[in-house]
C-alpha cells in the first residue's frame, strides 16, 4: 500500500512538473469545450434578410425600416409567402426571413400578442444563432421605445418565434458536448497513460522498476490512478461549463451520467494500458493514440450521423467505445431517460473494458522483452 501511495505521488510529480502535460490535461479540455461553443462565433455582418409582411401596417413598416437602416442587416426582398423565402434560402440568397403575422399593429395594441417569426439558415448554427439574436434585438428595441413613447401598458408583447431550417434540433453544442467529452477522455486516458508508461521504458527507469520487487499491479495502478483522477476533474469542469455557461441541459440523473462516464474512462484507461504493452517508444504511443481519435471523431456519431453511413462503417462503428458513450450521454443529458434505457450501451462498454483489461494483462511484461 505504501509502495502504491508513493508511486502515485511520483506520477503526480511528473505531471505537475511538466508544463506540457498540464496544458494537455487541464487547459486543452476546457478550450475544446469553450471554443466551438463561444469563440468561433464568426463576426456576423451583412445579414441578408427578406421580409414577409402579412399586415402591411404602420408598425410592421417601422420595424422593417429599422432592420433596413441597421448596419448589420441588408434588406433584400419583400416577399409574399414562405414558399418564396424557402426558395431564396435554397439558393443561398438570404440568411434570415422575418415574417409578420396578420393584423400586427392591431393585435399588438389590443390583444398584446402580435407575432413575428424569424427563420434562419441553420446550416451554420453558430452564425444562425447570432443573426437571430441581432434581429431579436432590433425588434426588442423597437418594442421598448414604442412602450415609452405611447405609454402603452407593460404587458404588451411581441411574440417572436424562431425557426432554424435544415437543422431543426439546432443547438449544436447540445449534441457536441458529449462528443467532446468522449474525445477528451480518450486523449487523456489513452494517450497520456500509454505515453507515461512507455516513457519509463524509454528512459530506462522501467529496467530498475522491473528488477525490483515492486509488483506489476502496483506499477500499473499507479500509472492509471492519476489519469483517472484528472479525467474526473476534467469531466466535472466540462459539465459545469456546459450546464451553467452554455445552457446544455442535464435532463437525466447526474449520478447515472457519472456512472456511465466512469465506465467509459476505465475503458479508455485500459485501452491506453493495452497500447503501452505493445509499443516501445513514446512517439509511437502518441501516434497510435492520435490514430484512435480519428475513428472517435468520424465513427462515433459525434460529427456524422451513424445511420446515414455506409454499412461497413456502421459495422466498424460498433467497436468504437466513444459511440456507446455518446449515445448513452445524449440519452441521459438530453432525453433524460432512466438507467434501464442505457443498459445496452453500458453493457457494451463494460464488455470492451473487460476485453481490453484481459488483453493488457496478457501482454504486460514482467520482463523487458
Amino acid at each position: 500500500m505504501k509502495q502504491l501511495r508513493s508511486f502515485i505521488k511520483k506520477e503526480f510529480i511528473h505531471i505537475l512538473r511538466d508544463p506540457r502535460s498540464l496544458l494537455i490535461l487541464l487547459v486543452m479540455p476546457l478550450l475544446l469545450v469553450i471554443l466551438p461553443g463561444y469563440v468561433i462565433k464568426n463576426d456576423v455582418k451583412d445579414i441578408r434578410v427578406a421580409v414577409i409582411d402579412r399586415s402591411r401596417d404602420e408598425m410592421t413598416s417601422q420595424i422593417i425600416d429599422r432592420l433596413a437602416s441597421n448596419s448589420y442587416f441588408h434588406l433584400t426582398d419583400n416577399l409574399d409567402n414562405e414558399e418564396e423565402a424557402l426558395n431564396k434560402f435554397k439558393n443561398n440568397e438570404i440568411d434570415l426571413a422575418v415574417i409578420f403575422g396578420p393584423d400586427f399593429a392591431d393585435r399588438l395594441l389590443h390583444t398584446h400578442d402580435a407575432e413575428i417569426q424569424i427563420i434562419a439558415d441553420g446550416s451554420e448554427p453558430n452564425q444562425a444563432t447570432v443573426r437571430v439574436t441581432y434581429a431579436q434585438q432590433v425588434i426588442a428595441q423597437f418594442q421598448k421605445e414604442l412602450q415609452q413613447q405611447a405609454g402603452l401598458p407593460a404587458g404588451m408583447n411581441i411574440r417572436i418565434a424562431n425557426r432554424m431550417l435544415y437543422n431543426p434540433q439546432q443547438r449544436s453544442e447540445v449534441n457536441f458536448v458529449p462528443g467532446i467529452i468522449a474525445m477528451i477522455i480518450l486523449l487523456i486516458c489513452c494517450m497520456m497513460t500509454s505515453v507515461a508508461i512507455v516513457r519509463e521504458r524509454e528512459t530506462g527507469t522501467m529496467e530498475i522498476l522491473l528488477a525490483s520487487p515492486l509488483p506489476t499491479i502496483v506499477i500499473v495502478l499507479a500509472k492509471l490512478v492519476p489519469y483517472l483522477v484528472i479525467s474526473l476533474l476534467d469531466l466535472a469542469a466540462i459539465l459545469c461549463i456546459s450546464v451553467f455557461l452554455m445552457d446544455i441541459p442535464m435532463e437525466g440523473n447526474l449520478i447515472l451520467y457519472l456512472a456511465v462516464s466512469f465506465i467509459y474512462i476505465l475503458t479508455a484507461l485500459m485501452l491506453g494500458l493495452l497500447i503501452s504493452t505493445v509499443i516501445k517508444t513514446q512517439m509511437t504511443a502518441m501516434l497510435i493514440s492520435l490514430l484512435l481519435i480519428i475513428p472517435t471523431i468520424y465513427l462515433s456519431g459525434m460529427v456524422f450521423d451513424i445511420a446515414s453511413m455506409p454499412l461497413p462503417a456502421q459495422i466498424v462503428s460498433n467497436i468504437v467505445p466513444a459511440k456507446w458513450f455518446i449515445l448513452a450521454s445524449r440519452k441521459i443529458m438530453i432525453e433524460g431517460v432512466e438507467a434501464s434505457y442505457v443498459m445496452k450501451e453500458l453493457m457494451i462498454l463494460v464488455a470492451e473494458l473487460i476485453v481490453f483489461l484481459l488483453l493488457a494483462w496478457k501482454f504486460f511484461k514482467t520482463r523487458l522483452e
Partner: protein
Amino acid sequence: MSIISVKDLVKTYNKGRTKAVDNLSFDVERGEIFGLIGPDGAGKTSIFRMLTTLILADSGTATIDGMDVVKDFKKIRQHIGYMPGQFSLYQDMTVEENLAFFATVFNTTIEENYHLVKDIYEQIKPFKDRRSGKLSGGMKQKLALCCALIHAPLVLFLDEPTTGVDPVSRKEFWEMLQKLKHDFKLTIIVSTPYMDEAVQCDRIALIQNGRFLTIDSPDGIIDKYRETLWAIRSNQMHRLLNDLRQTPGVLTASGFGETHHVTVDPSVLTQESLKNSLAALGHTEIEVTAIRPTIEDCFMDLQS
C-alpha cells in the same frame, strides 16, 4: 558456494541470427568485484539483463545465492541492486525524492540502510533539493549508486557505470566501489569497455562477440601471456609503428600511448638487433624495454 553461478548461458536475437551471448559459464564469489570487460556489443548488457531477471535466456541456467533467475525471479528482485548503462533515474524529481522513492520501491526507508550509502550520499546531500536532471555527470552517478544500494542488496550489478566519464571521475567511482567491497563485503559485478579498469577487479572475464576470451584474476591473465613483449619508442613515433611492422621478427606492433607495444619472435630478434635496424632507418632516441603486458595487451592477443 558461489553467490552467482552461470552455466551454458545462451542468448540470441533476431530469431537466432544474432548470438549476443554464446554459451557462457562463470561463477562469482561472495565479496568479490567481478568485471566483465569488453567493447560495446560484446554481450555484457545481455548477461546483466539475464542475471537481473529482465530477459530470459534461450538456454542455460543462472542462480543468484541459490535462487534460479527464471523460477525465483521475484525473490531475486528483492535482493539485487542494479544500475543500468543509461542514467535511469527520474530527472524531474529531486535527489531526495529519487532516493526516497527507490527506498519505498524496495520496501525500505532511507534511514534503515543509511549506513550503506552514507559516505556517497553525504557528497551529494548539499544538492538534495536539486532535480536529478540538473546534476553533473559525476553526481548523477553517485545518486544512481545510492538508489541501487538503498535496500542493502546481496549483489550489486553495475552495467558500464564509467562509460563516457572522464578519468578523474572514473577513479573516484572505483574508490567508492572498493570501499563498499571493503566495508560491507558487498559482491559487485561490473562491466566496462575500459581495459585499464581491469586491475580494479578481483577477477575479470574478457568478452568479445558473446564469448569469453578468458576468465581469471588480472594478474593470472597477465601471467598466462606467452608472447615476448617490448615497449619501444623513438623520436618519430608514427613512422616507428610502420617501420616496426616491416621489421622481420616483429609479430605485431600497436600504439600504446607514449610507447608502441611490440610482440616479437625472440629467435629472430634481440633488443640490440632491433635497435640497430631502427637506427639504420633513421630513428634516434630509441628505447626498447621488455615489459609486463597490460590487460589490453592480453585482450588484443586473445582477440586475434
